[in-house]
Each structure stands twice: as structure tokens, then as C-alpha cells.
């Protein structure tokens, strides 16, 4: 079924949850805005709190979206880590981005692999590169790095 941006905005409005105290990111609290696609490449951007990532995934799963990628970004200046979930839709030209921020000291957020099994690999890779722990993930062992790797190479303060 083909969702429209209005349905998405109204569905995401229910996500206006409490604001975690220790995270002071600029695009906080829940900001939902439509984006000019040929400037940014996606149509819909939602910044949610880490706890609501799974509910956002369930909403998008109901609308028939597919998971595209899970990207980790290490904002070392603001002492935070950003996790960006990309979703594409197989039938219509609507790309949704759900982003959240976790404190750099203890980067943890729930896994969405029960909703999207494809996220299992994406999250394992993000854990590999950034050390972001996904709670409830079935198998968070090193994935692209050697089995005994304990370093996280894509962190900005990584020294070989």
C-alpha cells in the first residue's frame, strides 16, 4: 500500500516521547520535517529518541518500507554518536530517514532486527566500526573485522 507524506507525518507525530536528559543534540526533541529531495536525496526526515527507534521501524514496516542502511556517524565534537536509518519504498519514490543520537560514552540503543531481519547485518557492522551496542541483537560479534578484533576503526579518536 502506498503511504503519502501526510500519513507519515501524522504517524510519526505520536512519537513525541520524553527527552533523554544527557543528550543535547541540536535537532532535538522529536523534529519531523519534509525535505526537498533534489537537495538532500530523501523526502522525509525524523529525529527520534533512541528508545523510539523500534516503534519508528514498526510504523515504517506497516507502511511497506524496506530497510536500506544503518549508518553510524561519530560526532566527537558534541561527544555524541548519531545512528541514521535509511528506508526505501519498493513502489513509490519516497525515502525516509530516521536518525537518533546516543551519548558517546555509553552508545546503546535497541535493535530493530525483530522488525527488519536485514538490520541484523547492518547493526553488526555499525557495532564493528563504532562500538555502538545494539541491545537485544542476537550476535554482536566482530563481523567485517577479524574475530578477535576489539578496536573500532571508524571512531574519530581511533589510533591504529
Amino acid at each position, binding site marked *: 500500500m502506498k503511504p503519502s507524506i501526510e500519513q507519515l507525518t501524522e504517524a510519526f507525530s505520536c512519537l513525541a516521547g520524553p527527552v533523554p536528559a544527557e543528550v543535547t543534540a541540536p535537532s532535538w526533541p522529536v523534529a519531523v520535517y519534509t525535505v526537498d529531495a*533534489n*537537495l*538532500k*536525496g*530523501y523526502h522525509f526526515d525524523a529525529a527520534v529518541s533512541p528508545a523510539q527507534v523500534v516503534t519508528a521501524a514498526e510504523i515504517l514496516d506497516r507502511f*511497506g*518500507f*524496506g*530497510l*536500506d*542502511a544503518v*549508518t553510524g*556517524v*561519530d560526532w566527537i565534537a558534541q561527544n555524541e554518536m548519531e545512528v*541514521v536509518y*535509511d528506508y*526505501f*519504498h*519498493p*513502489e*513509490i*519514490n519516497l*525515502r525516509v530517514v530516521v536518525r537518533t543520537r546516543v551519548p558517546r560514552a555509553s552508545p546503546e540503543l535497541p535493535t530493530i532486527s525483530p522488525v*527488519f*531481519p*536485514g538490520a*541484523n*547485518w547492518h547493526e553488526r557492522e555499525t557495532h564493528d*566500526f563504532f562500538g555502538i551496542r545494539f541491545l537485544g541483537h542476537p550476535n554482536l560479534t*566482530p*563481523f*567485517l*573485522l*577479524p574475530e578477535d578484533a576489539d578496536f573500532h*576503526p*571508524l571512531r574519530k579518536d581511533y589510533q591504529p
Partner: protein
Amino acid sequence: MIVRKESIPPGPSGEAPSETFVLNLGPQHPAAHGVLRVLMTMDGEWITKAEPVIGYIHRMHEKMGENRTWAQFLPNTSRIDYLSAMHYTHAFVGAVERAAKIEVPPRAEYVRVITSELNRIASHMVWWGAMLADLGGLTPFLYAFDDRELILDLLEGICGARLTYCYYRFGGLCNDIDDDFVQGTRAFVKHMPPRLKMYRDLVTDNIILRKRLTGIGPISAEMCRKYGATGPVIRGSGVAYDVRKIEPYSVYPQFDFKIPTYPECDSMARYLVRMDEMEQSLRIIEQALDQLPAGPVMGKVPRVLKLPPGDYCYAVEAARGRFMVRIVSDGKDTPYRVKLRTPSFSNLSLYEEASKGMILPDALAMMGSLDLVIPDIDR
């Protein structure tokens, strides 16, 4: 002296239990198309659990994205998936142009489409040869590389490389195409259909191939969506998802071409999707050659490229599926983060669930139909 290791579960119908063992379809295996290792827990010939282990050719492309300037990352883009290098460079260049709002002259866009579609046919040729080699037919490999050499000569004529072309630049191309490229491409477009017809008669309608592929490795549209599998895998399951049609980029809206889909969801459907895709690519090349405008091939680009802060992404229909580049820039001349969403990574993630209970030859036939390039998975 046979030592019995773990306790053996009773067989399915309760009679004498047969022992499950772990087979290591390891990094060095002809059917692995590179260095993919699959840990297969087998019961006789049937697979109970096939868990791919990757990372044997991880080459730090994303880490290299962060310590090079925008232009220095271009050679990397054609080494991620070296079989469809043009698409990957197109995605990275498109993302940077979208962020810096660089105007690309129309002639450059048309040449990008022509070279990308030529590269798609070359990539499908290698897939076709490799897949049939997996099924035991070794002669098609020779035919496939014959046609592929024609394409490589054409592309080598304009950008000097056979495999890792670094042909696109921000704002256009590194140099213009000349006349014998145009004549060569027109000759190729005329030469290819009878060859494809020969392949259809010799191989596609071959009863052995039909028996080996029909009904093997069913991947439903729902599983494709859940795992994010795109490209010929999702089109083989009946969903007409093609980035060129659904999220049009470059000058693809100017051409009329069909997206071949097959509803059967099995390996034969994915095979037929790729064979029909080659014909559609030929149609696109022909139309692009007819509408090729004159004019410059390089737009105005600032000397040192600094992108406004923020994150931008650009998706492209590569030979294996949807390739998306997500760049995060903080205003400096080097990217802050480059994320490469590669199609083979998601296409392979559904392998564990899709190959449960199959026998080994069928599981390898299905892996061939997924068309994997392993450095594309490990990045």
C-alpha cells in the same frame, strides 16, 4: 577409533540418527565468487544452517573516505564493485554534485548513461559466465567474455582502463567521447541481439538449466523487502523496483525502457530478469546515442570543493541492485563520513534464511543467482 563428538539428534522420522557436520565452504572456493566463507551445518547433503562469514576482503573504503579530499576518493569508488564501476562512480559524483549544487551539462549526462548501461551489460556477462560455471557448464564463460571484451575495448578507448574506470568527474566527465566510440557502440548494439538470441536458444532453453533452476531458492517479495534485497533479486520476486524508474536520476526519464520482472521468485526468475535487462540496456544505449546533444562535457566546479555541512545521499541502480552513497560533510574539503550502501551486502543477508533445508548443489545455484561480488559486501 571413531570418536563420537556431540550427541546426535534423532533423525526427522525418529529412526537411526544421522550425524550433522560442519562443512566449511571457505574463502578459496570456485563457487564463492571471491573470498566468501559459508559455514554450513549439514545433515548428509541437506543444509540445516548456512551462515555466511564475511570480512576476508575488507579494504577500508569507508575509512579511506574520511582522510581523502572529495576528488581523491574517486579511484576508490571503482574498486568497490569492479564489475559495475561506472555506476558506483556515478553515485558518488551525483551525491557531491547534489550537495554542492554543481550543474552537469546534458552531453555529460547522456554519456554517463551510455557508459553505465555498457558497464551493466559487461557485468551481467561475467555473472552469466560465472553462474553457469557454478552449474557445471564451462563453455558459456568463453562466449560471455568474448562479448565483454568488445565492451572493454570501447570503454578503454575513452577512459584508458579495462575494469576500474575513473571516468566521471564532479560536474561532468574527464574527457569527451570520440567518433569511433560512437560507431563502435552502434556496431556493438547491432552485434549483441543475435548473440543474446543464441544464448537464449543454447542455454536459457536448455532443459538441464531449466531443471536446475526452476523452483530453486524461492525468495518471496516480503523477504526481499524485510532484508532490503534489491535489483534483480527483488525483480525476480515480482516487484518492479528499479531506481532508474522509481527514483529517477540523471537523464533516465528521457528514455522509454521496460523493467523486466518475473513473479516466480525462484532462481530461474532472477536469471531471466538479468537476461532481459541486457536487452533493455541495449535499447537505452540506442536511444541515448540518437539523442546525444553536442556541447561541453565539464561544468563549472570550484577549485577546492567544500560542501555545505549536512548529509546528502544519492542512489543509483547498479548491476546488482540499489547502490546508495550517504555523505556527511562538516564544511571542510574532506568528507566527515562516507557510507556506501552496497546491494550485495543486503542480497546476501537473506541467504541464511533462504537456504535452510536445501541440498548443497541447489544452495550454490541460488548463490549464483544472487550475483555476488565479495569486495562489494566487505567494502
